[in-house]
């Protein structure tokens, strides 16, 4: 407090700091001629930051993956639509290190879906689709739709193959596929329950119905029930809801929905999995 009363002291303090800086050694390193020593434990890893509430700040927007010129950025996470997604970059480069570091920390490898190797597929039909699209990235949407028609969903291997053959950036293809709701990355499951989330359906109790399905199916929106038989999703009623919230089971609207019915519907769907579609 007393120092504030001395006029002009701050100026001298500032000057003293500036003069000290003049005599300090230069921090700039003339890379690559000179190189700073790097710790042997340094991996150059990208770190995701957490906010004050402990939530991950990363929105899984893939902008960094898209911007990366050598496609080395690789991520898995929940995107802005609450779907779990994985961007399969060159996983084989990164997975080993990750396993190594996980081992070092815990003594055993941590299983993580995002670093499993992807399943190979028969690329024959995909090559025909690519030829029909004349290998042009501009026809990527038609290629993706064709691939989904052949494989039932969009396998990672198919996306990688399209990216290699057309020269399109993998992240661009991935971004295109995620922006269209009819394209999906998960194999189809036995049944799909969809609940409308529009305002009028919510006023009719859609939120409670969705919560009931969440509870009884044991999964969140976009996920599959633990036994792998039923997927929970969202749809749009288009104003078709009169009296109760709009719920679709396998594309067929329910005449009436209520949170109480959700338990019986969920149980019935889990018990009755059609063999052909479940595969």
């Amino acid at each position, binding site marked *: 407090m007393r120092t504030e009363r001395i006029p002009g002291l701050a100026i001298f303090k500032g000057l003293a700091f500036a003069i000290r800086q003049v005599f300090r050694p230069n921090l700039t390193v003339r890379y690559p001629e000179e190189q700073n020593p790097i710790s042997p434990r340094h991996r150059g890893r990208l770190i995701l930051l957490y906010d004050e509430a402990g939530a991950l700040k990363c929105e899984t927007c893939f902008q960094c993956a898209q911007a990366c010129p050598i496609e080395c950025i690789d991520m898995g996470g929940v995107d*802005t639509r609450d779907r779990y997604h994985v961007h399969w970059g060159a996983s084989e480069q990164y997975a080993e290190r990750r396993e190594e570091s996980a081992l070092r920390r815990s003594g055993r490898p941590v299983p993580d879906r995002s670093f499993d190797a992807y399943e190979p597929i028969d690329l024959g039909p995909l090559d025909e689709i690519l030829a029909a699209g004349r290998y042009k990235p501009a*026809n*990527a949407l038609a290629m993706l739709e064709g691939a989904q028609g052949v494989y039932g969903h969009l396998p990672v291997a198919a996306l990688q193959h399209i990216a290699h053959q057309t020269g399109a950036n993998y992240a661009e293809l991935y971004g*295109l596929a995620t922006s269209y709701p*009819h394209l999906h990355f998960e194999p189809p499951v036995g049944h799909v329950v969809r609940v409308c989330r529009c*305002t*009028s359906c919510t006023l009719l109790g859609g939120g409670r119905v969705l919560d009931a399905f969440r509870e009884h199916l044991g999964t969140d929106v976009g996920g599959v029930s633990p036994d792998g038989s039923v997927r929970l999703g969202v749809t749009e009623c*288009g*104003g078709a809801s009169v009296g109760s919230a709009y719920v679709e089971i396998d594309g067929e609207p329910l005449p009436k929905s209520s949170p109480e019915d959700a338990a019986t519907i969920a149980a019935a769907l889990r018990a009755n999995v059609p063999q052909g579609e479940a595969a």
Partner: protein
Amino acid sequence: MSLPILTGAADWPQMLLARAANGAVADIEVAEAKGAWAAFKKATTELTPEVVLHTITESGLRGRGGAGYPTGSKWRDCVAQADPVHYVVANGFEADPGAQVDRVLMELDPHAVVEGTAIAAWVVGAEAAIIAVSSAAPLAAERLRVAVEEAEERGYIGRGADGRRLEIEVREVTGSFVVGEETVLLRALEGKRAQPDQRPPYPTREGLWGKPTVVNNVKTLAAVPWIVANGAGAYTSLGSAQTPGTTLVQLGGAVGTPGIVEVPLGATVREILDGPGGSAKKKFKAVLVGGPTGGFLPSNALDTPFNYEALRQAGAVGGSGTLLALDESACLVDVATLMTRYLSYSACGKTIPCRIGIKRLAELGTASCSGHVRPSDAQLLNELATDIRDAALCGLEADAGNPLLSVMRYFAPEFEAHSLRGECPAGVCQPISLAGAVSS
């Protein structure tokens, strides 16, 4: 499932749904007997494109998609472009998840939409036009396809029809809420990722495939044949002087009879709700105007006329043309939060204020509903919503703050009960619901 068509007040003009008063007009024979394609024949045989353009400008027709941009100016801007290739896109992608206004129009009177598109293409010199329909509306797409085929058989449109060439394609588009926006729709039609573009340049200069493109809502285009047939003067006498004409409005929620009604622009929200909507089941607490990006109007603001300026000034949008009445059992903070969460879910992720800001808005709303709110959150919410609007690239982003802002503006006591005292007057918000309060 389609909602019933309600009859408006006796002095309300019937124009968009005039032909389809007794059910859908799918067949071209029936439609022509009722006057379809007469305007197109009149325009192409007796008039010049410049005359029709002048008529549309004089009529004061404005875009029914929500922005209310004058249709004549839009077409004129497109005509003025030097590029010889022009396109016309009819936007029938109904973005609002709870609305079916455009779908019902396309199902009931597909010929009006096709004829309007044909006239627009003829005026701006386009040889290809696309009618974009949501893939969730297969019947509308089917009827439009039949209408286009029948018109081709009659030789009105199609390849080599007396020197003119016009091909109309009906395209089914999938996508989220944001696809209803014009630049997003154009990207989706090009098969690209559905994201908006910077404007200007507007689509009338650089639109589909970089060519000058007119993008009009199907309700706008369906009005065009009537204007050409009856003249600009007849149209300006309908509705209000500032925004002439009629539009379609969907009534829902706590109204006596949900349905779709054709209303003259300028009729007040109260007239629309009380007349065709029938008597309310309960007392209205608020009316949500304009779908997920719309705003809540309180019961004392129901005399707001249903036109673009008045609604925007009141904090709502006319966009999707839905009026959703809410009764006393609804908690508006909860509903507004839900809408904001839906918008954050629908955001394409192109701009950071939209991708992260709307998510933060929804989090602030969730905090209010769950009682974990800080006193400074109201100010933060206000500033964040304003910043998102200022940085907006598309309509979704610009209007994303509307639900929460309109609740703060008109229902301050209810909002403050949540944010300052941790109470929910309606007893809806779960962790903090008031003991003894009646929930729905």
